[in-house]
């Protein structure tokens, strides 16, 4: 069994219009090895954020479950930490206080001095949103489209920051994103989801690019271009095609699922 095992999870939501339920995704199964960086890519509505929430313990799967180090996940825990879009730092606290709160929660037995030390280590140079998550030293780090609302220029800098922090701490990372370039740059493997509703895990591709990867150099690699083309084709054509196939086979309703965040 893998370090983090997503074991045939299915998620239903109550139909917003009428009676019955809508299936977001069905029978999603994959594993993430310890220290691996896995990214999930797919259109909006395929449920990738929901999968992330299920791993985090903020939501429960309708069928199936998630197993971490052989133990089933039953709710939030300090071994899994989320980096939200926009980092969601609590604006009524200072940056330092935000990180402090996280560290205190992770290590309740630590003294004030120990906490301060840890906070200083993480806050000094690093991006604070990431700092707060990394400071808790979780087993699994979950990134929910963390750079979506950041402008393109800053994004590159923060991505490099992330890679540096991850390389040092080697948490297992599960990230969800729209940005194909980002996925290829950062991940070891990329999971591709079909469109929702009733989305499936279509395939997982390996990113055979050597580390360390710099944005400038990696773009010239032929493997990069191949991967990029493959994924974009998938997103544009194949994900829809697969969905249509499923509809034809009678496995879907005719109404598109409108995701509500």
């Amino acid at each position, binding site marked *: 069994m893998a370090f983090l095992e997503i074991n045939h999870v299915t998620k239903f939501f109550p139909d917003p219009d009428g009676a019955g339920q809508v299936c977001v995704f069905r029978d999603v199964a994959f594993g993430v090895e310890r220290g691996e960086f896995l990214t999930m890519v797919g259109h909006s509505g395929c449920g990738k954020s929901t999968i992330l929430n299920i791993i*985090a*313990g*903020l939501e429960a799967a309708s069928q199936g479950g998630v197993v971490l180090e052989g133990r089933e996940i039953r709710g*939030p*825990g*300090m071994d*899994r*930490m*989320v980096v*939200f*879009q*926009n980092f*969601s730092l*609590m*604006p*009524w*606290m200072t940056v330092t206080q935000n990180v402090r*709160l*996280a560290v205190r*929660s*992770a290590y309740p037995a630590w003294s004030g001095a120990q906490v301060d030390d840890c906070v200083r280590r993480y806050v000094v140079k690093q991006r604070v949103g990431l700092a707060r998550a990394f400071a*808790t030293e979780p087993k699994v780090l979950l990134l929910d489209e963390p750079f979506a609302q950041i402008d393109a220029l800053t994004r590159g800098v923060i991505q490099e920051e992330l890679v540096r922090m991850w390389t040092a701490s080697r948490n297992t990372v599960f990230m969800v994103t729209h940005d194909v370039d980002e996925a290829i740059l950062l991940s070891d493997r990329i999971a591709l989801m079909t469109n929702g509703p009733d989305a499936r895990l279509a395939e997982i591709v390996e990113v055979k690019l050597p580390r360390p990867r710099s944005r400038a150099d990696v773009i010239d690699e032929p493997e990069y271009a191949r991967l990029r083309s493959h994924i974009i084709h998938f997103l544009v054509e194949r994900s829809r095609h697969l969905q249509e196939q499923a509809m034809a086979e009678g496995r879907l309703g005719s109404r598109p699922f409108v995701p509500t965040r």
Partner: protein
Amino acid sequence: MTPAREERLRTVVYSLVLLVSFLILWQGIAGAGGKGGKAAGIPGPLAVAETAWVMLSDPFYDRGPNDKGFGLQLGYSLMRMMGGYLCASVVAILVGVALGSSPALFKAANPFIQIMKPISPLAWMPLFLYTLKNAGQAAVLVIFVSSLWPTMANTAFGVGSIKKDYLNLSRLLQLSWPRRFLQVILPAAAPAIVAGLRISIGSAWVAIVAAEMLIGGTGVGYFVWNEWNNLALNSVIFAIFAIGMVGVLLDFGLGRVAKLVAYSD
């Protein structure tokens, strides 16, 4: 002069012009007026100013139940108001948090809140006087009732609008209930709560003056009514200004608090 400075100066000048015109108009329509006696009409600003001087130069004397300094009367009113207001604020915030955290509970409680809100606090007075048999306590309870609803509604709204990410974060960090309340929920909802408090203190101050007119004894409301019964309109007008000033100060104080708890998302 910078444009900003110019703008500010212009505003001040306009205000002064408004004030002076108002005073002139007032003096014009005022009659001989006075402390009561051959009064032909409303006392003018000069007469009121004279009374104000007398009132404020010795505000804290106490010469028996019929004659207490204006400062003392203000003190009584403020004390009663604060008693009712503070109790109401605590209750309203706690209940508001509960309602804001549970949409089901809020929907259930909302009809009752909507019914209670428009009831004039003074309509409760007879009921309280009958049950409490104590005019002072009845007044405080009237203030309590009138200060509840704005704070409660705003708190519920503020708590209900907290960004889901913050709440999720507190679940992820496995924050204990008190920690979660003090470090996440309260600060997040604080701007809405303080806005509610600000509205509530306004209605509390209005209510105490009115309540005192009914129950008598001490306080600015009683003072106004007593002076009116004695046709001492100078004192009545002076008291009106004083009541207004206190209202401004109370609101200003809470405005500062609002600035303290404000944050940009």
